[in-house]
């Protein structure tokens, strides 16, 4: 019999929600547990096995020198390394501190030694090691996690859309919240994946899945300004869970103080 693939789940700076999505696959959890060898998944088990691992799922952003060393070790032990969620993929909500001015940081004297261990920025995993696949979302869509694990087990590339949320929204036949309600929707520039949840709940998309492939971020920002949104409002819209994704970061800087 073929050896079961060994899976490890790792946590860095994060809320645990993406690894929880694995446990939220209630109908499939036992099948997954049967098909793979869960070698390291602290949130679920106190039994841990040393590497190497076939698949490492990484949640969370890198914010300390210790975590930077840890991700290098994990990379060395992992055949496939996949980031799950906005923190690991783009630095997460905690990357909002990356926008603080350097001088402000210099003025800060940390009252406790452990603070000194903090890196200046909250980094995506890909700043330090090569990443084989990135799953977007804050949180990830649990069915994309299932697709990812199934694809890796079958030795194929996961099928995850890179197009914009608008396409999902249109396919669901939802009324456009920007056109009908003049709400500041990020749908045109945000990657699909949630199923256009917010428009379905009469709410504009606020960007959990980060920039879509080929996103025209500047054009949308300009349109939002034309519709009466202020510079600070546009900055806040672009700076949430994927604030440090280059496309959002660069455009948000352009609207600062405007």
């Amino acid at each position, binding site marked *: 019999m073929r050896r079961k693939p060994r899976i490890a789940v790792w946590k860095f700076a994060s809320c645990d929600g993406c690894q929880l999505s694995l446990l939220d696959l209630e109908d499939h959890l*036992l099948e997954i547990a049967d098909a793979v060898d869960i070698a390291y998944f602290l949130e679920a088990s106190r039994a841990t096995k040393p590497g190497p691992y076939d698949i490492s799922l990484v949640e969370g952003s890198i914010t300390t020198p210790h975590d930077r060393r840890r991700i290098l070790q994990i990379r060395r032990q992992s055949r496939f390394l996949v980031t799950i969620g906005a923190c690991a993929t783009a630095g997460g909500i905690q990357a909002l501190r990356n926008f603080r001015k350097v001088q402000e940081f210099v003025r800060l004297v940390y009252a406790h030694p452990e603070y000194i261990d903090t890196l200046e920025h909250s980094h995506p995993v890909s700043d330090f090691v090569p990443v084989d696949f990135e799953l977007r979302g804050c949180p990830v869509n649990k069915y994309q996690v299932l697709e990812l694990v199934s694809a890796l087990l079958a030795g194929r590339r996961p099928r995850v859309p890179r197009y914009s949320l608008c396409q999902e929204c249109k396919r669901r036949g939802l009324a456009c919240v920007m056109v009908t309600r003049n709400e500041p929707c990020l749908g045109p520039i945000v990657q699909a994946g949630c199923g256009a949840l917010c428009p379905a709940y009469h709410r504009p998309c606020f960007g959990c899945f980060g920039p879509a492939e080929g996103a025209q971020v500047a054009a949308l920002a300009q349109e939002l300004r034309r519709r009466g949104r202020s510079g600070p409002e546009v900055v806040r819209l672009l700076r949430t869970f994927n604030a440090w994704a280059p496309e959002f970061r660069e455009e948000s800087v352009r609207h600062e103080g405007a």
Partner: protein
Amino acid sequence: MKERKTRKTLTFQVSALARVEGEGALYLKVRGREVLEARVDIFEPPRFFEAFLRGRHFSEVPDITARICGICPVAYQMSSSHAIEQAFGVSVPPAIRALRRLLYAGEWIESHALHVYLLHAPDFLGYEDAFAMGRDHPERLKQGLELKKIGNEVLQVLGGREVHPINVAVGGFYRVPDRQELQALRPKLERALDLTVETTRWVATFEFPPIEIPYVFVALRHEHEYPMNEGRLRISDGTEVPMDRFEDLFQEEHVPHSNALHCRYRGQTYHVGPLARLNLNADRLTPRAREVLEQLPFPLPWRNPFLSIVARGLEMIVAAEEALRIVDAYEPPEQPRVPVSPRAGRGAWITEAPRGILYHRYDFNDEGLVQEAKIVPPTSQNLARMEEDLKALAPQVLSLPRDQATWRFEQMIRNYDPCISCATHFLRLEVEEA
């Protein structure tokens, strides 16, 4: 897991606690039967939420603070929405109030079922994890997953998704369900009620290490209901105050070994969560939960922390019964949310997260932008208490073989269902003039 022998001093160490949310460790130093030091170390990196909440618009706060915790995001959405509404003098109609309670009931079921079945029960039955437990008791594990799934379905219907729901707005919801949507949950909630009763009776048969700890319990107390979103702050010494007095009664202190602050009540450690809620609100249990409690061989108050798993069972019964009542009585509100006009001011609120009281306080300017935020999650309130509990447990487990003693210490921590991601969200950047 490792233990070292240095002369006569023993140390018990778990370098990475499993089956808890977030990254923590425990450390115990013992000489003879005396515990020299007990620490719950937190090495989850800080994420500085209070710092970057400054300058954000009030309407963004529920979604941003939800990201503190993927297991109890509704708790953060509830405490923050209420605190903001208090700052702006907004009150919501009964239908919105009922929907919030329904959403919270979904989260209690999902979070408690996760803890009871996947994180906690394996300890009592001697398994490393739920997967191993499921190989010997497949029906039990399936039952737990089914229950957890029903809790998640409530979150999906009302919140859009289970982790970081998208439908909570200051003043209410972005979209409210119609009667049929909620009625569709009814058969599932009936099933959940059966499962929660079954769960409670099952976990009550576990073997509980004999230990009684004279805790100071703290929870909300509501006039008629088992507390979730509203009430006064009740302490087991008889004190009861409005919830916005929280900061007068409870002080946070920094301890060097931890990336989290510790809270104390009049200098003492205290206990929040299911055990505290049950002891202070047993007369507010729903009928079925009360019936099940009365059949259990454990007289109140419960001072054995290992009984927290039974308290979680009872609270899931409460949540299922309340959800059914709300679904049946539901009439959609006229509008999904009440209009909110910001004004300069302060608002503070406490709700009952699955793990205990969660305090939020915000200051706003007249544009509704956050000037200052303070968040005190349940786990940081329990941390100091957990260390005391390790000391209290030590005498009866030190004679056990080393690996069993260490496992028992771990269990003591898991009794609290600690969420370390929550407890470290708030490590502040402290500014000192050089």
